[in-house]
């Protein structure tokens, strides 16, 4: 039963969504199924929170390596959740001054806003910015012209790296922009690579992926692929 019900739900919703794309009078069925998806997506946030708690509480109770980090995760999770859910420090909406919880939780100056502005925002921006340092180190140690393909990749990388900055314009600005060789200007070359070589390759990949998704979806709808249910079936 635990497996049959999900299989039927998947099959029915899958068929409905396909049919609703081709049969006009069944369009509302597809919309209904999409609405259910929206509800499930909202509930998934709660499940996600539960899962986070489960994983980290287990890590703390087992004293696994890095359990102290789990404590920080749970502490900050609980604090942010409480601040947002209970609208701590939020002033009532001026239109409804007698309703204490009518204020905007994300409004400037609220504790929730403070957490976002001074904790979340700098931390995520810092994490992303650190990529530049690791990419530079990787470029020095790993990007080698070991064979012809690697040389092509290197050449392309140089053109794009230069073409996406003023250096590209500066280095090849002597080539007349309206002359027959204007395509050799680095900024033009980088656009050409992106619009021709990249587009050709990506379109092939996209079409391949789309066909793969269609095939896999059919297998899931027909119950032939049950890997999404777990259990290695």
């Amino acid at each position: 039963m635990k497996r049959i019900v999900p299989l039927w739900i998947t099959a029915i919703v899958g068929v409905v969504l396909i049919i609703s794309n081709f049969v006009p009078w069944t369009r509302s069925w597809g919309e209904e199924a999409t609405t259910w998806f929206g509800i499930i997506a909202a509930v998934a946030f709660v499940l996600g929170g539960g899962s986070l708690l489960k994983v980290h509480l287990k890590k703390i109770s087992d004293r696994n390596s890095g359990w102290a980090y789990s404590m920080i995760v749970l502490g900050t999770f609980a604090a942010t959740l409480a601040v947002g859910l209970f609208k701590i420090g939020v002033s009532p909406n001026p239109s409804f001054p007698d309703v204490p919880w009518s204020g905007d939780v994300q409004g400037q100056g609220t504790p929730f806003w403070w957490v976002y502005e001074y904790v979340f925002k700098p931390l995520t921006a810092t994490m992303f910015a650190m990529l530049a340092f690791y990419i530079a180190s990787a470029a020095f140690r790993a990007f080698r012209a070991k064979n012809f393909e690697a040389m092509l990749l290197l050449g392309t990388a140089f053109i794009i790296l230069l073409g996406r900055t003023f250096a590209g314009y500066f280095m090849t600005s002597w080539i007349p922009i309206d002359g027959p060789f204007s395509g050799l200007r680095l900024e033009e070359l980088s656009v050409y690579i992106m619009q021709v070589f990249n587009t050709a390759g990506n379109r092939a990949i996209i079409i391949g992926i789309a066909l793969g998704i269609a095939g896999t979806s059919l297998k899931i709808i027909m119950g032939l692929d049950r890997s999404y249910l777990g259990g290695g079936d």
Partner: protein
Amino acid sequence: MNLIDRMASLDRRWIFLMMGLAVGIPIIVIGITGKTLPEEPTPLAQAAFNVLDDLDPGSRILMAWDFDPASEGELGPMATSFIRQCAQKGHRMYFIALWPVGAQMIRSSTSRVIGGYYPDLVYGKDWVDLGFKAGNEAVIKTIVTDFDQYFPTDARGTSVDAIPMMEGITSLADFDALVNASAGYPGSKEWVLYAATPLKKPLIIGCTGVQAPQMYPYVPNQVQGLLGAIKGAAEYESIVNKWVRSEQLLDALELGGITEPTSSELAARFTENPAEASTWTTEAAAAAMSPEAKTRLIEIANAPIPGIFLEAQRRMGPQLVAHLLMIGLIIAGNVIFFANRRRGVSQ
């Protein structure tokens, strides 16, 4: 130990230091001098501008901010310029987000641009913040036919029935164009697949450098304008800045009694070369203008562009030096590689 061996065993912290300086020094220099590198807009950036420019004032533009603080460095300036062009043109802006922190991105960009430079725009009449909705592409699929189902209220909890500019909005088909600033999933691709393509609506995308190669295949039929990374943002920003300055000059000239087509020609000239405005006002052709109108014209022509509208162009400086450093490091790494291979040293 020779130079090659020393370089081969270079501590990665030196590379980190070099990258830190490559980014930090240009930021400081640009901050002090205020100078930016010139930008030559590519056709894709120009096309993005044209989509919004070709629409009549008052058109309904859906602005989907699907990014977070991690990618704000690239996408924040695009969002700023999108809002500026729409606000200047008089379009009605409807903001939504499919990313949880996209809601904060909407607040941040609208408060900076609309709050700071277009205070006359009225919330609910000229722009509305509909906030974040969970559900990824399901949100798009639903609002393609039924907008109210996901957005019965705005981000402040006001019913859409009480928001004047929501009147007549029943689905995505009621919008004139879609603008999306995206840092991943759900984002640009989903807007192409589930909204722009079935509805045949103009779509402008601003995305991160990593995403851009995946979006090029959809240009120009499904995506009409594409801004890739900070370079795309800088190009678009420079177009919008010039256009806004040109519009302001045109207004000043027409208020001073200069009529078309002379006013347009002069506005274009003064936008390219602000110093010409001072010279022109002393000529006989400007005799019809009052001294106040002339002063106003010169002020507009020479007014500095606010820093908020130069963010992308300023970031091109650090990007230039960082890219040159990357190229230098790749070359150095390969010199070591070939030198060692020649000496028979295992890699």
